[in-house]
Structure formats: C-alpha cells, structure tokens
C-alpha cells in the first residue's frame, strides 16, 4: 500500500503543477508553429521540445544537474553557442551586395531605431502596474528589434538571463512573422510610384574586395567598439573562411557541422529557461507586445530612411529595400522582393535588398555592443 503510494508519487501526473501543464502546452504550440506553419523550424522546434523537456515534473532536465541545464551552462552562459552560430552565419553570408553598394549600410543603421525605441517602450511599461523592467532588462528586450536570433540570445544571456526564454521565443516568432508584419507598414509609408522604382544592376565585386571586407569590418570594430568584437569577430571569421578560398574544409564545417549541432543544443538549452516561473509572468506578455512593436518600428524607420535615400539619389533607390534593414536574413529581403513585384512584375528587388539585409545584421551586432558597453546587468 505504502509502496503503491510511493509509486504514484513518482509519477508526473501526481506532481504536475498548472504552470508546468501550461508550459507543456506552450512547448507543443511552438512545435506546432514550427512544423505546421514553418515558423523558423530550425530553432522553434528544438526550443519547443526543450520547453516540454524542462517542464516534465520531477525530472529536473532543465536544472543544474539535468542535461539541458548543463548544456545551458556550457554553451549559453559562456556565450559560446550564439558566437558559433554567428561563425556559421558569416560563412553562409555573401556580402557582395553590400560591398557593391555600401550606402545601403545606412538603411541597416536606420532600422536599428526599432531597438532603441523598444528600449524606451520597455522602460515606459514600468508605469503600468505589474511591470518592473530594469535598464538591463529593457536593453535585453529591445534587442528583439534587431531581428537577429544569435545576437538577441547573446545579449540576453549577458543582461537578463531570466528573460532569455521569452526573448528568444519572441525574436524567432516575429522573424517568422516578418511576411505578415512588414508588408502593411511598407505599403502605408510608400507611394505606388516609389514602390515601382527599378534599381540599377549591382556591379560585380572582386574576390579581393570580398576578402578585405571582413578584415576592414573587424578592425573598425576593434578600434571603435570593442564590446561588439565577439559578435563581429565570429561573423567576420566565418566570412573570411568562406571568401579566402583557401580553407574550404573549414568553411564547409562552419556552414554545416558546427551550425547544425549547435542549433540543436542551443534550441534545447533555451528551453531550460522556459520553466513556468520564468515564462508565465506578465513580463512575458510585455515582451511579446514590445517585440511586435520593435519589429514594426524598425521596419518603419528603415522604409523612411529608404525614402530619404530615394530623394537624395534622385529616385535611384527603391525605398522598400529599407524594410530589409531589420535583418531577419533572408526573409525580410524576400518580403521586399514580393511587395516590389506586386507593383511591377519585372522589378526584382531581391539582390538590392540583400545589401540592407546583411547591413542589418552588422547594425544589430553594433547596437548590441553599445548596450553591452553602457548597460551593466
């Protein structure tokens, strides 16, 4: 009898709290979005699965002795996993479009307005009872507006580890929602004539330029903003492996083995921050609202800067490509292409949008560097 009781008490049902039950449903929901809706499945599927695993009663998989807790300590607390992902991103990214038209970097800068506006928004939310975001919390939340997963995880693990789960979920969810969030804003802020602007073909970029680019970017970062050096360093290393042409083995490794393995482990480990106590709070609600806000503001700022560039260059720039400045590579560039095609069936903006798109990656890494340098957790 006693033994039967012991057995019953070692089951999950007997120990399930409503928070855990809700989080199991959240985990299933994320997996549903990943599989059925193709919401960034490479990250949201492992994150959702991690959410389930670490909310299994008694198992303690997300705790300090559990598998996910240990992976978190080794890979995320140290910052190594997001940096290795950035290495892979660098090796997968072709910066030619940016090198051919460097002025698009300004679009990538403008779109980071979303980050800083969201920072203000998060602080203002403290006026609402129930919210209590510190400056470092607000900075970590704001980086969602950077629309760049590894940057968001890297910054959040430094400034607000407790919010990491919600921030990562919000960042990847909104990146998946880019095709829904961006087009109305893009249409609202541009005229039909502006959307129809056809841009000049990009000049070819020589191999030497593509090799020098990552080195220039790294040295500039070293001189101006050392706090961004880990992120920019890994991005440029990956890109140099790719463009140097002499270490194909290593480049392929960064693009495949490293990024794939780390993606699985990173996703699972984020799940260890999706326990009920950390996630089922009003803060999470605030983060989700602020995230949408951040994406919208960033898109708008990019498009408005696109309009300014369009005027200054005598309508040589289609302002739509400013929307790609938020990052969300390559989704945002594809959205630009699609909205552009709606006006003019022969106007392919994809390559033109890749410039601001990769500029957005650099821009949000720089913004993260500023926040790390000026905000102490």
């Amino acid at each position, binding site marked *: 009898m006693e033994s039967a009781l012991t057995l019953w008490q070692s089951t999950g049902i007997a120990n399930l709290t409503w928070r855990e039950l809700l989080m199991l449903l959240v985990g299933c929901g994320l997996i549903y979005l990943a599989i059925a809706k193709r919401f960034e499945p490479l990250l949201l599927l492992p994150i959702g699965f991690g959410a389930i695993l670490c909310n299994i009663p008694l198992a303690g998989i997300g705790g300090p002795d559990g598998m996910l807790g240990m992976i978190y300590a080794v890979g995320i607390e140290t910052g190594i996993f997001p940096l290795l992902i950035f290495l892979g991103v660098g090796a997968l990214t072709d910066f030619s479009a940016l090198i051919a038209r460097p002025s698009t970097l*300004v679009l990538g800068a403008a779109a980071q307005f979303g980050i*800083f506006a969201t920072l203000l928004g998060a602080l203002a939310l403290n006026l609402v009872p129930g919210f209590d975001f510190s400056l470092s919390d607000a900075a970590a939340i704001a980086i969602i507006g950077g629309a760049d997963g590894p940057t968001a995880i890297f910054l959040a693990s430094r400034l607000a580890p407790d919010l990491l789960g919600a921030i990562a979920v919000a960042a990847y969810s909104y990146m998946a929602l880019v095709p829904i969030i961006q087009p109305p804003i893009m249409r609202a802020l541009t005229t039909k004539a502006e959307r129809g602007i056809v841009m000049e073909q990009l000049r070819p970029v020589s191999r*030497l330029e593509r090799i020098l680019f990552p080195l220039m970017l790294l040295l500039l*970062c070293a001189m101006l903003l050392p706090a961004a050096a880990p992120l920019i360093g890994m991005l440029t290393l990956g890109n140099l492996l790719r463009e140097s042409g002499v270490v*194909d083995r290593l480049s392929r490794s960064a693009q495949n083995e490293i990024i794939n393995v780390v993606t699985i482990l990173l996703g699972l480990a984020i799940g260890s921050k999706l326990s009920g106590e950390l996630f089922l709070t009003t803060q999470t609600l605030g983060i989700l609202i602020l995230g949408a806000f951040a994406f919208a503001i960033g898109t708008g700022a990019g498009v408005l800067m696109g309009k300014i560039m369009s005027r200054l260059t005598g309508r040589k720039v289609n302002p739509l490509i400013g929307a790609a400045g938020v990052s969300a590579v390559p989704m945002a560039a594809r959205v630009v292409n699609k909205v552009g095609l709606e006006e003019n069936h022969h106007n392919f903006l994809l390559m033109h949008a890749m410039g601001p798109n990769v500029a957005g990656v650099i821009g949000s890494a720089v913004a993260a560097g*500023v926040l790390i340098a000026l905000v102490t957790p």
Partner: protein
Amino acid sequence: MVDTPVGDLLLDGLWLMGIGLGVVFSFLLILVAILVLMSRAVARWGPAEPLAQSLTATAPVPGADPVPGAGHARVIAAITAAIHAYRRRHAA
C-alpha cells in the same frame, strides 16, 4: 536599479537611445567610407581579375584545399559528360 523612479529610468533610456543610435550611425557611416575607399583602392591597385570568376561569389581558388572538393568536382564533371552524351545521342 529597480528602485529608480520610472522618470529617471526613462531619462537614462533617452540618453542610451541618443548615444546608441549615434554610435550605430557613426560606425556604419565610417564603414561606408572605408568600403568606398577600399573598392577604389582595389580597382586601382588590385590584381586584374577575370570577370567571370569575380561574379560567382563562391568561386573556389584553383589548387587550394583540393581534398574533398576535388572528388566532388570530378563526379560533377563525369555526370556532365554522361549527360552530354545522353543529350547528343537523343538529338541525333
């Protein structure tokens, strides 16, 4: 930090916004300048490069790290030859 009145926090936030956007814009504008100068320098002093190669972003450098790529390239070449054979025969 938590005890700071919201007003002070918002002021800090405004400061951060100003400095942050300033740094981001400065950084990227300097990068624009550097890239423009770099491209000019490469165009003037860089080695002449066959255009076909420079167009393809991932063009491998001949002779470098041949181990795994080479085999694959040879497979592709073999297939190409086979396909050509197939097509020509059908065309004939």
